[in-house]
């Protein structure tokens, strides 16, 4: 498969960037000043990962596209992030539900990717795994506190998880890109991440006194550019200056 490595690095970068963009929407509006600091830290980690993955994707592609070029000059169909990360923040419970599910998956993925035969991917993943381990733990703490907090917070946490259950399946899907790279020892086989993910989610839900995970039919498509309605709006905001002034350097 041609350019599988480019596609793979690109989707990892897109995941991180879109979620980092979502988290930066919280800045100044969190439930407590301390939480503002926490969310910004997670956002900064994710945008930093995006710079590395997209920068690498551009190098692999060899057409002179930089991380910024990839971030600010691609339209919706060319984005390959998973659908979960582009979901609107909703309330704090929904944001934490998304963070917990995504970071738990991302941690398992980067753990494996740190042993990739591709030295650059391995290097980026080894750095990022420490970051996302922290994200997964922090988000897990909040799922527990909100799940086992008040009536209201429990209801909101259940709603938040319910919003995102349909996007879990996509995280574990393997397409031709993944299969090609798994065979080469470059990518991680997502199927192998599933038991660890399920166990961790089940443990946190149990501690939070929340109902067990019941996944509905999966909604997929992000990896081939078929997104939810939300991504176009994210890009409209994120890309508007570089697109309005295509010759400018910032």
């Amino acid at each position: 498969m041609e350019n599988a490595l480019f596609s793979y690095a690109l989707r990892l970068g897109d995941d991180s960037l879109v979620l980092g963009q979502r988290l930066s929407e919280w800045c100044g509006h969190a439930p407590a000043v301390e939480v503002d600091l926490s969310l910004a830290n997670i956002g900064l980690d994710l945008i930093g990962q995006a710079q590395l993955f997209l920068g690498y994707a551009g190098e692999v592609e060899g057409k002179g596209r930089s991380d910024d070029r990839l971030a600010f000059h691609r339209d919706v169909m060319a984005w390959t992030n998973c659908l979960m990360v582009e979901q609107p923040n909703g309330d704090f419970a929904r944001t934490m539900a998304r963070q917990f599910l995504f970071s738990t998956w991302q941690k398992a993925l980067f753990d494996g990717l740190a042993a990739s035969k591709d030295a650059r991917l391995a290097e980026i993943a080894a750095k990022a795994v420490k970051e996302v381990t922290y994200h997964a733990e922090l988000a897990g703490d909040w799922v527990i506190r909100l799940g086992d907090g008040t009536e209201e917070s429990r209801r909101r946490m259940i709603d938040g998880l319910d919003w995102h259950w349909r996007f879990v399946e996509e995280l574990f899907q393997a397409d031709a890109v993944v299969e090609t790279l798994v065979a080469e020892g470059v990518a991680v086989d997502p199927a192998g991440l599933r038991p660890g993910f399920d166990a961790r989610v089940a443990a946190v839900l149990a501690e939070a006194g929340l109902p067990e995970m019941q996944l509905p039919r999966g909604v997929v498509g992000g990896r081939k550019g078929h997104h939810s309605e939300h991504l176009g709006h994210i890009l409209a905001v994120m890309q508007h200056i570089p697109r309005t002034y295509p010759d400018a350097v910032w």
Partner: protein
Amino acid sequence: MYTTELQKSDSKPVAIKEPQELIDAFEARVAADAFIEPKDWMPDAYRRTLIRQISQHAHSEIVGMLPEGNWITRAPSLKRKTILLAKVQDEAGHGLYLYSAAETLGASREEMIDALHSGKAKYSTIFNYPTLTWADIGAIGWLVDGAAIMNQVPLQRTSYGPYARAMVRVCKEESFHQRQGYDALIVMSNGTDEQKAMVQDAIDRWWWPAIMMFGPPDDNSPNSAQSIRWRIKRETNDELRQKFIDATVPQVHLLGMKVPDPDLKWNEERGHYDYGALDWDEFYAVVRGEGPTAKERMEARRKAWDDGAWVREAADAHEARRRLKAAA
């Protein structure tokens, strides 16, 4: 960010007779540049003035996140996005350090936040102006943080220990804030004509509000003398304003831009720039809450706090239950 006295003293407190020997000892310690620490005896007026000043400073940091936060999702490169997010995050941190310092004086953060949300407490006037283009983000870092740093550096030696320590931390962290703003404007002023126009427009709009940040002129700043004696203010408003203008004008020129003040001119004799009259009616209107975006700022802060109530409550409830279980 700013420590200008914006609120005139609230309703006169009931006069408490404080023992003269304690007052004398306190004044002597402060005059000798000794630090006052939280549990030390201090005059009630000193405590109240500090709570007002520090909380106003904290509120300015928190409200100050909004005009810049407005641009994080739109920053034109990934590098600028991370810089801006880290910078606005720092403002949250600085607000927190300052609330912490005020809390050592017996004010709860909740009370301080209530005072902000009810309009009783003030915050820096500068944040009641809108950020319209990306150049505004550069201008805020350079001019607004620059003015703030001018104000804050002397406060690292303020008489109240926790405030001084918070200022040391804030100043250390803020040194990158001004530079990143100027750096963004240098790049733009070497860029396209549209970018250059944006930079000049931003300077035109932010210049006057920035130099007003130092507060009313000295002859209209009645509490200044006492604050300087108490070392909770170390230089007067006009002294700081002059210092800022002297340092900043050459930086404007270096960008190839103009200062929007026709009366600005170097005064060889004084060794300072002379500058035009400030529009104090505008300043006091903004202090009263009539700034162009005052309603947006307050609405956003109240909404964040109110929307977060269920989160704070839930975490408390969880902890109470955990403790109960642990005790059983």
